[in-house]
């Protein structure tokens, strides 16, 4: 240990490094490039990862949607092509029988899946907007940001079948003048007056509602549109530790049973599994991450091998010098230690320079992607543990590769070294 922290040791090392500047620079470029590639790539990957995450923030990423279509297999006395209708009873049953479900929200809508959006008016202003009938719980699956002063639907609205609605940003812009506070005022839908209780912000993310919709309590909705127990589709969020793909098939299996649909009928119920989609997306990011790790590591190894190679040449060049040192009383351990330290030191310097360069490039990337170009890219960073890991690997590799030239340096007999002209 004393050897490593000894100022004289370092003076010896700097001396021999300074002796051949060009060689030293070329030597460290390999490792520098390796760690730079590693940092830049994994940072960029992380940025992409973060970008995806931002794009889908507010959406429970282990959620899915289930809706009905027509049957494709005759079953239980019913003919092929029967339309299946989800009912509120399905929801209850699903919730009771499948413990993996955290939230389940039955939803209805007018104006998206076929059918024209109904007209909504306020005084002389009118517009056609999609109208949703929702349980308040839907907010847990697809979060809505409500402007100050307003609120989202709640249980009381449901229970009392209140004639209230939450409107999208565009609806407000269409129906209200700029300085008007829409909360508390009324809009007319199908000759029913609904009080506006909140305005939701336009979401950057993917959702059904967009910014031109009205959201009503499910109970109010079914009275206005006379839908009874019918459910248009359902949004389901699973607990974090639940396999969503499995849950999806369980849900469908149960629904098929309830609606007398052939167990093998793949058409009767449609579903979209966000969890799966997310998994694919994040799997892609993970793959990129792995790739950058691999490429970076491979480049670092190549760089370290180059250092070993150059040190080997350098030892050969310095045969005579090492011989003189041995004649003057340098023990083999001292010679070996010096070459080893040189190797590790060069590796470290290269590594740290590479990390700095990588960080600079990432900072530049961050600034360039600051504006929303529609490219999912946010806050490219590299975890400190990755950096420390890389440095650790470099020290280990630097030591291992340094052992070769060091051993070579020691194996030169002083007499042979001195004899060499």
């Amino acid at each position, binding site marked *: 240990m004393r050897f490593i922290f000894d100022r004289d040791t370092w003076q010896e090392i700097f001396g021999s490094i300074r002796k051949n500047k060009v060689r030293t620079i070329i030597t460290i470029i390999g490792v520098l490039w390796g760690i730079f590639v590693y940092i830049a790539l994994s940072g960029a990957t992380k940025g992409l990862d973060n970008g995806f995450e931002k794009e889908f923030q507010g959406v429970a990423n282990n959620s899915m949607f289930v809706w009905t279509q027509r049957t494709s297999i005759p079953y239980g006395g019913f003919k092929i092509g029967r339309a299946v209708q989800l009912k509120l009873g399905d929801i209850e049953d699903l919730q009771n029988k499948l413990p993996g479900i955290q939230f389940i929200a039955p939803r209805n809508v007018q104006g998206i899946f076929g059918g024209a959006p109904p007209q909504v008016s306020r005084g002389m202003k009118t517009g056609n907007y999609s109208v949703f009938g929702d349980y308040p719980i839907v907010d847990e699956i697809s979060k809505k940001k409500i402007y100050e002063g307003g609120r989202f639907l709640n249980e009381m609205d449901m229970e009392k079948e209140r004639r209230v609605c939450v409107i999208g940003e565009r609806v407000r812009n269409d129906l209200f003048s700029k300085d008007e506070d829409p909360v508390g005022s009324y809009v007319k839908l199908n000759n029913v007056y609904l009080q506006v209780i909140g305005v939701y912000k336009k979401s950057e993310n993917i959702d059904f509602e967009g910014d031109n919709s009205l959201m009503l309590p499910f109970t109010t909705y079914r009275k206005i549109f006379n839908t009874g127990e019918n459910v248009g589709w359902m949004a389901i969020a699973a607990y974090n530790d639940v396999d969503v793909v499995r849950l999806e098939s369980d849900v469908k299996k149960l629904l098929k049973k309830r609606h007398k649909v052939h167990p093998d009928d793949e058409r009767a119920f449609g579903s979209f599994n966000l969890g799966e989609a997310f998994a694919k997306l994040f799997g892609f990011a993970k793959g990129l991450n792995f790739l950058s790790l691999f490429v970076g590591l491979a480049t670092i190894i190549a760089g370290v091998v180059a250092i070993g190679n150059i040190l080997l040449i350098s030892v050969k060049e310095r045969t005579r*010098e090492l011989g003189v*040192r*041995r004649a003057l*009383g340098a023990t083999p351990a001292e010679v070996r230690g010096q070459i080893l330290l040189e190797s590790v030191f060069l590796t470290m310097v290269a590594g740290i320079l590479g990390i700095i360069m990588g960080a600079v490039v990432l900072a530049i990337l961050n600034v360039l992607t600051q504006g929303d170009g529609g490219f999912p890219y946010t806050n490219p960073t590299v975890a400190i543990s990755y950096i420390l890991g890389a440095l650790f690997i470099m020290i280990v590799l630097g030591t291992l590769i340094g052992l070769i030239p060091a051993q070579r340096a020691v194996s030169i007999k002083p007499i042979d070294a001195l004899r060499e002209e």
Partner: protein
Amino acid sequence: MIEIKDLHKSYRMGSNSLHVLKGLNLSIKEGELVAIMGSSGSGKSTFLNILGMLDEADTGEYLLDGVPIKNLNETKAAKYRNKFLGFIFQSFNLINYKTAIENVALPLYYQKVNRKDRQEKALKYLEKVGLKQWADHLPSELSGGQKQRVAIARALAAEPKVLLADELTGALDSKTSYEIMELVQEINDEGKTILVVTHEPDIAQMCKRIVHLKDGVIVEDTFVEQVRASQYVQ
């Protein structure tokens, strides 16, 4: 100081064995200045390497200041070299990216002398060889004679028992050679034991004793009237 008894050394050259040293006996007392002469191939360099612990004899006895030198591993040999011996080479063998003073301080570094003492001592010996003002110059900025002076200072710095010089004037013109020999004589006058391998008779005449080697045996061992180098130096 040095006791050699029945020293043998042979080298393996492919299938042949070359018997280089065929039973040397030599005794050198403290304060002697001995020239080892011989034509090339006489075994004088081999002999010096064995004395310098750079090479090991096959058989025979070698006592240095009462310490038997045999079966040394590299680490031990390095320690003994550092403690007992100072080397002066024909081609100086200074480390070319180190200044004169750093070169002189190098054996002290391996003796684990601390930095300040090292600098002080190195400067003292540079002054002794008359190169104090050249302390911060690189070897490439020095003349051959100056380089050899730095090498002598380096050999002295570790304060060894014996100085071993291998053709120390071989790369120098005769004027510079005499100057170097003058310095060697001065150092010897102070009591240092010095062995000089040379094939130049005039250099050998400047020593106090001449040992002739021929075909691996000592053929002549005479004490001579020392010629002072100073008389050649203006």
